[in-house]
């Protein structure tokens, strides 16, 4: 029995040769001979049937040992499932835990790199690196397939192989170191799983078995269903980026054959068409593992990784120019730096084009302007029309006012004065009787004048029939009172003409004037009145058998047809002129006189003669 030399080791005599703690979880050959044994109670060196135990201290407890590693300088590394990482150097034990930078307190496996870095596999804390007194953690966040690393092997060509709960993974040491040094964020992690011949993804959850490398370089991993042997030479990293090609383009589910006019250029017709782009990445090694990302400028701000999907779909692209980029990565995550691209032009509808919109705007402005102009013009015309009508009404009103003032006012004044005279002359009976008689006459005159005004104003009398009947009655009244025989010649059937108040009134007053002339001046015994209606004119003739127009009263030679003046003739002419007609007088001494009042038919047929003055 030999005793331990020095340091933390004590020889514990068990009383029985070859006692070892049970169960042994791991075991490696020790440089000084014998073996390092790891178990639940700690670490011991077995040598020549004896065991030396690493004595735990208050500052360091090495329990549940899963892996032991001894450096050439004698430094011993112990991974403990729950107690972190132990370092035994020069007789001193030091324990590293999460607080010291470890990814997890549960460490499972160890591997010493040639450059002196120590790789530590943990349960839940990823792969850790201890180098120059500092820990670095590489986990799933950095692209590792799993955070639990059970076994770590170096394939001698620059990769670390690790067994995890998700299969066996391979990562380039260069990338791992770059990641651990903070020079890169992501590592490319290649995972071998069921597709690659494994019958399970889960490694054996127990301890590491070191030196699991065959002489020809195969790596052997312990799995929960046996062992897995890998020939790293066959699993070289695929450094060839897959060529990318755009294959088919479908617009509205129809394959575009001639849409691709130039290489990588496509024109899409107007409308909200569904655009579908199929692309592929060529890889003979592992076509199923080709992954893609694409980007549609200017819509996508960044690349969109779509995995193995070989189709991009855009349901609606507004009119404009686009560039579709697609690129692919091989099974080893090597991206094609150039990829493929397709220039897409979505043509607008004609109404989406700028020129059309400008034109539409211009048309709109033109139409609006036109409508406004027409409305303004219509309004102007209407107000003009209203103004005209108003003026016509005003003219009519002033005419009525004028008539009432002239015809009634004078008579009423006379009545007032006569009444006053009669009152002052009450004692003088003949004078009073005379006054009363004149009042009576004036009153009758007023009534007649009223009758005429009312007849003229009332639109019910806007008929040729009413005009004729009124003329007839007046003739009989005037001539009958004067004892002059009256002869009338009016057609029995009268046309449906509509002389306005103005026409009727002027014509009637002229007619009455002519009758009065015949009664007062001509000394006639018979007056005949006749009406002739032709297609063009309405003519009323008042003829008497009196003395005719006196030479002294006429203004010139008494030629037949000559317009004479005097005896109210100018007033007749004025009245006829107002309604667009004419007054002619035919007379010769001793052969009577004929007054012809001629009015064009238009004055009888239209109600729109208001404006005429």
């Amino acid at each position, binding site marked *: 029995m030999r005793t331990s030399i020095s340091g933390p080791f004590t020889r514990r005599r068990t009383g029985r040769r070859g006692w070892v703690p049970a169960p042994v979880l791991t075991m490696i050959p020790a440089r000084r001979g014998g073996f390092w044994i790891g178990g639940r109670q700690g670490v011991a060196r077995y040598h020549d049937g004896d065991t030396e135990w690493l004595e735990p201290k208050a500052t360091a407890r090495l329990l549940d040992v899963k892996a032991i590693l001894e450096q050439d300088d004698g430094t011993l590394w112990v991974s403990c499932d729950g107690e972190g990482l132990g370092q035994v150097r020069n007789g001193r034990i030091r324990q590293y835990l999460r607080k010291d930078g470890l990814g997890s307190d549960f460490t499972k496996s160890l591997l010493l790199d040639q450059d002196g870095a120590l790789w530590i596999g943990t349960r839940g804390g990823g792969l850790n690196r201890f180098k120059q007194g500092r820990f670095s953690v590489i986990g799933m966040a950095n692209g590792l397939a799993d955070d639990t690393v059970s076994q770590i092997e170096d394939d001698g060509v620059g990769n670390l192989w690790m067994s995890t709960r998700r299969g066996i993974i391979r990562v380039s040491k260069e990338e791992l170191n770059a990641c651990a040094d903070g020079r890169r964020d992501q590592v490319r992690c290649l995972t071998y799983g069921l597709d690659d011949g494994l019958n399970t993804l889960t490694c054996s959850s127990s301890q590491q078995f070191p030196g699991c490398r065959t002489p020809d370089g195969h790596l052997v991993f312990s799995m929960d269903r046996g062992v897995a042997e890998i020939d790293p030479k066959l699993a070289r990293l695929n450094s060839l980026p897959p060529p990318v090609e755009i294959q088919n383009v479908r617009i509205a589910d129809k394959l575009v054959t001639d849409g691709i006019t130039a290489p990588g250029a496509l024109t899409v017709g107007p409308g909200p068409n569904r655009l579908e782009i199929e692309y592929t990445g060529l890889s003979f090694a592992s076509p199923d593992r080709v992954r893609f990302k694409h980007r549609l400028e200017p819509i996508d701000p960044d690349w969109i990784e779509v995995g193995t999907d070989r189709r991009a779909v855009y349901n609606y692209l507004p009119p404009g120019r686009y560039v579709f980029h697609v690129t692919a990565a091989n099974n080893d995550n090597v991206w094609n730096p150039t990829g493929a691209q397709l220039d897409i032009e979505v043509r607008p509808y004609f109404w989406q084009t700028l020129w059309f919109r400008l034109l539409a705007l211009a048309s709109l402005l033109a139409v609006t302007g036109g409508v406004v102009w027409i409305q303004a013009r219509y309004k102007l015309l209407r107000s003009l029309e209203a103004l005209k009508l108003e003026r016509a009404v005003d003219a009519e009103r002033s005419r009525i006012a004028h008539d009432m003032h002239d015809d009634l006012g004078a008579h009423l004044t006379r009545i007032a004065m006569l009444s006053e005279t009669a009152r002052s002359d009450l004692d003088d009976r003949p004078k009073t009787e005379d006054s009363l008689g004149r009042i009576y006459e004036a009153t009758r005159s007023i009534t007649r004048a009223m009758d005429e005004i*009312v007849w003229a104003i009332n639109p019910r009398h806007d008929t040729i029939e009413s005009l004729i009947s009124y003329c007839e009655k007046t003739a009989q009244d005037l001539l009958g009172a004067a004892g002059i025989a009256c*002869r*009338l010649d009016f057609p029995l059937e009268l046309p449906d003409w509509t002389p306005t108040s103005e026409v009727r009134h002027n014509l009637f007053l002229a007619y009455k004037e002519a009758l009065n002339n015949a009664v007062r001046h001509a000394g006639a015994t018979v007056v005949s009145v006749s009406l002739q209606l032709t297609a063009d004119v309405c003519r009323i003739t008042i003829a008497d058998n009196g003395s005719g127009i006196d030479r002294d009263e006429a203004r010139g030679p008494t030629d037949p047809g000559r317009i004479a003046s005097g005896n109210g003739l100018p007033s007749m002419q004025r009245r006829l002129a107002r309604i667009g007609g004419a007054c002619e007088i035919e007379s010769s001494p001793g052969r009577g006189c004929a007054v012809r009042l001629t009015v064009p038919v238009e004055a009888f047929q239209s109600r729109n003669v208001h404006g005429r003055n």
Partner: protein
Amino acid sequence: VSISVSIIEDDNNVRSILVSWIRGAEGFRFVSEYSNVESALSALPKAPPDVVLVDINLSGQSGITCVRELKPLMPQTQFIVVTVFEDSDHIFDALTAGASGYLLKQVPRSELLASIRQVHEGGAPMSSYIARKVVQWFQRKPPEKEREQAELSTREQEILRLLARGHAYKEIADELGVSIGTINTHIRRIYQKLHVKSRSEAVALFAPFPSEPRPPAPKA
């Protein structure tokens, strides 16, 4: 024998003046006055006067309606319509309704009394315009069965034609070689034919299909 006169007039002043004129006149007897058509319709047929003066423009029912209602009930009574203005259409309507003459309100008292007496004694005033209207009226196609009794005689047509040409009664009498009384009789007969025709037309208007069988009455 004095002429009994009733007055239908809604203007109180006018009515009292007319009443006083009739009352104070020799040979006239004022019997009653009414201010509206309704009271005249109920009272007048019980004691028909010789002459009734009717205002055309009465408030409520018009004087024309009044004449049309009363004339058949009292055929011996002469109706004279009185109006402010000489509105030919209204006057003609009144004549076809049964009136025998018309007067303007502003006529002097003497003229008014003379007209009443003239109408009572069988006179029938007719102006040239009314004559023209009458001619037109009879030229319209009359209903078949009324044709005979409503037809104007040749002499009547001749008188109307002369009237329409403006001849006075005396001129017509000279022209035809008859007395003015005969002319009046002819014209009075023309008025009667006008009434008959007017009535028959009214009947034709309100009962256009008298021969059509009525649908059987529903059983109770």
